[in-house]
C-alpha cells in the first residue's frame, strides 16, 4: 500500500484537531506516515499510532531557531527516504512556505487551500477568496497538498499498532533567518482562529468594546475574530483579523457582530457553514449572505444570547 507523508510541526498533546484531520485524510489515500518537525515524546508516538500512523520520521537534532528553510529541508529528506504517494501539510502561512520550498527541492507541484482530496489525488480547492471552487492536479513529482482546517471529520482512534521510528540526519538548509527573540502573548485558552469550529467576530459597530464578543465566543468554545476596521483601530490584536489581508476561515458557525460585510471581510468568511449577522444597519451587505440576520444593537443582542445560553445550560 502506498504511503502518504503527513508533515506535523506542532508537538502539542492532545493531538490538535487539524493534525487528526490530516491523518484521517491520509488514511483515505494510503498508509499515514508522519514527518514530525520535533522529536516525539512517547505519549506523542502513542497518539500518532492511535490515529493510524505506521511510521514517523524525526529530525536528528533541533530545527526550531531557524525559520522554515530547515523544516523544508527535513521534509524533503523524509520524502526522499519514504517515496510517498503524496505529502500533506496544514494550510498555515508557515506550512505553505515549507510546502513551497520542499516543492522546489523535490521538483514537485504544490497545491494550497485544499478542502478535499480524492483517493486519486484530485484536489478540490477554494479560490478567489471563496467565490470559486476549482479541481486541480499535480502533474510533476510527488503531489504536495496543504489542507485547510475543518475539511474532514477526524476518524475515531484505532487500536495502536507498533510505530516505526526513523531518524533523518540534518542536512544543510542553506542561508537562513534566525529567530533572535520570542515573546509570548497572553494565552487566551481559545482555539486558533484558522482552526476554530465557532468564531464570533466584531467590527466597527463594537465601538472599542469587544467584551460581548469575547463573552459569547467563550460560551460557545469559539475563537474571537475581527474586521480590519476593528484591528486597525487597535481594539484587538492584528492576528484576529478575518478577511482579504487577514485570515481566511471556514468554521461551522460564524457570528458577525457590528461588521458591515464589505468585500474585504466577506473574502475571509463566506465559506463558513452557517453565518449569523447582527448589525443595526438593515442595509449592511453582510445580511445578503447571512443564514440568520438580526437588525439590532450588538450591545443588547449579544449579552441576551449569552444569558440565554447560560440559562439553558443551568
Amino acid at each position, binding site marked *: 500500500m502506498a504511503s502518504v507523508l503527513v508533515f506535523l510541526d506542532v508537538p502539542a498533546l492532545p493531538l490538535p484537531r487539524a493534525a487528526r484531520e490530516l491523518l484521517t485524510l491520509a488514511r483515505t489515500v494510503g498508509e499515514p506516515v508522519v514527518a514530525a518537525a520535533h522529536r516525539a515524546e512517547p505519549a506523542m508516538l502513542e497518539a500518532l499510532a492511535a490515529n493510524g500512523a505506521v511510521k514517523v520520521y524525526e529530525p536528528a537534532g533541533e530545527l526550531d531557531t531557524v525559520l522554515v528553510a530547515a523544516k523544508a529541508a527535513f521534509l524533503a529528506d523524509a520524502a526522499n527516504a519514504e517515496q510517498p504517494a503524496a505529502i500533506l501539510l496544514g494550510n498555515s502561512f508557515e506550512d505553505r512556505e515549507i510546502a513551497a520550498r520542499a516543492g522546489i527541492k523535490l521538483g514537485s507541484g504544490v497545491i494550497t487551500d485544499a478542502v478535499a482530496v480524492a483517493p486519486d489525488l484530485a484536489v478540490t480547492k477554494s479560490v478567489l477568496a471563496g467565490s470559486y471552487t476549482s479541481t486541480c492536479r499535480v502533474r510533476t513529482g510527488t503531489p504536495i497538498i496543504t489542507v485547510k482546517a475543518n475539511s474532514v471529520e477526524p476518524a475515531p482512534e484505532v487500536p495502536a499498532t507498533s510505530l516505526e521510528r526513523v531518524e533523518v540526519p540534518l542536512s544543510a538548509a542553506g542561508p537562513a533567518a534566525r529567530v533572535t527573540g520570542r515573546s509570548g502573548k497572553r494565552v487566551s485558552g481559545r482555539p486558533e482562529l484558522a482552526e476554530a469550529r465557532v468564531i464570533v467576530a466584531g467590527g466597527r459597530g463594537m465601538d472599542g468594546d469587544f467584551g460581548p464578543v469575547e463573552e459569547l465566543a467563550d460560551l460557545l468554545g469559539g475563537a474571537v475574530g475581527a474586521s480590519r476596521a476593528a484591528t486597525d483601530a487597535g481594539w484587538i490584536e492584528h492576528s484576529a483579523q478575518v478577511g482579504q489581508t487577514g485570515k481566511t476561515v471556514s468554521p461551522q458557525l460564524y457570528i458577525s457582530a457590528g461588521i458591515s460585510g464589505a468585500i474585504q471581510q466577506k473574502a475571509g468568511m463566506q465559506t463558513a457553514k452557517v453565518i449569523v449577522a447582527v448589525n443595526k444597519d438593515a442595509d449592511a451587505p453582510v445580511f445578503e449572505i447571512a443564514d440568520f440576520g438580526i437588525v*439590532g444593537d450588538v450591545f443588547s443582542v449579544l449579552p441576551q444570547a449569552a444569558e440565554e445560553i447560560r440559562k439553558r445550560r443551568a
Partner: protein
Amino acid sequence: MQESATHPLNIVVLVKHVPDAQFDRHLTGPGHTLNRAESILSELDEYALEAALQLAEARGGEAAGNRVTALAMGPAAAVNAVKKSLQIGAYAGVHLNDDALAGSDAAGTSLALAAAVRAIADSQGPVDLVITGMASTDGETSLVPAQLAERLQLAQVTFASELDVADVDGVPVVKARRDGDSFTETVEAPLPALVSVTDQANSPRYPNFKGIMAAKKKPVTVLTLAEIGVDPAQVGFDGAWTAVAASAPRPPRSQGTIITDDGTAGVQLVEYLAAQKLI
C-alpha cells in the same frame, strides 16, 4: 530608525498587476485562468515598495548609490504595475513579458522571476534584498516568495510587520518582527535576503504630481525569456507542475431569515443555533 549608513542597498521589489479585488472576478477559458481586464497594482505590493523606499532613503537614497527596482512579470498590460511603482517612487522598472509565460503556476513563476533577479544582478551588481508583499490578492497561495528564496538560496524572512537593515560591525543585517498567533518573534538574516512585509509594516505613500511627472523619465527595461536564459518549455501552461482541471463559481449564498430586534432577538438567536444543532 537607521544606524550609520555606509553600504548602499540594491533592492528589487516584486510587483504584480492583479484584477481589482473590489469587483467580481471570473475564471475563464480552457486553463481556468483569471480574467485580467480592470487590473491594478496589487494593494499588498504597495507595502513592499514603501518598505524598500524607506530602507533606501535611510541610506541616502538614489544619490548615495541605493537602487530600488520594481519587477513585474505578466502580459503587456502588466507594465502598468511597473509604471505605478515608478510614480510612487521606485527608481527603475523591469517588465518580464513573454507569451510563453501565460498560465505559469508558482513553480514556473518563481523560476522566471529568479532568472530575472539574476539578470538584474548581472547588469547592476549583486542584489541585496528582494522584497514582496505578504500575498498576491489574486492567486493568494503565498508560494512564490518562498520558492524564489529557495531557488536563489536567499535567507527568507516572510510576514515582517517591522523591517530594518542595521549595520552590525559594518555588515548590513536584516532585522524584522513577525507577529504570530501565539507569540511575536524577532528575526535576523544576513544579506542577500528575501523579505515579505505585511500590511502592518508601514503606510504606503501615494504618487504626487511631481512623482507622476518624474516617472515618465525613469527607465523601464523589458525582458523576454530568451534574454534571461529560461527555456519556454519550463514555464506557462505546458511547464506547470500543477493544472486546474475544472472550476465553477461557488453557488451564491441565499439570504436566510432576517429579523428586527423586538427585545427578544438574543433569545431567538439561541433558539436558531439550537435548531441547527450548533449549541
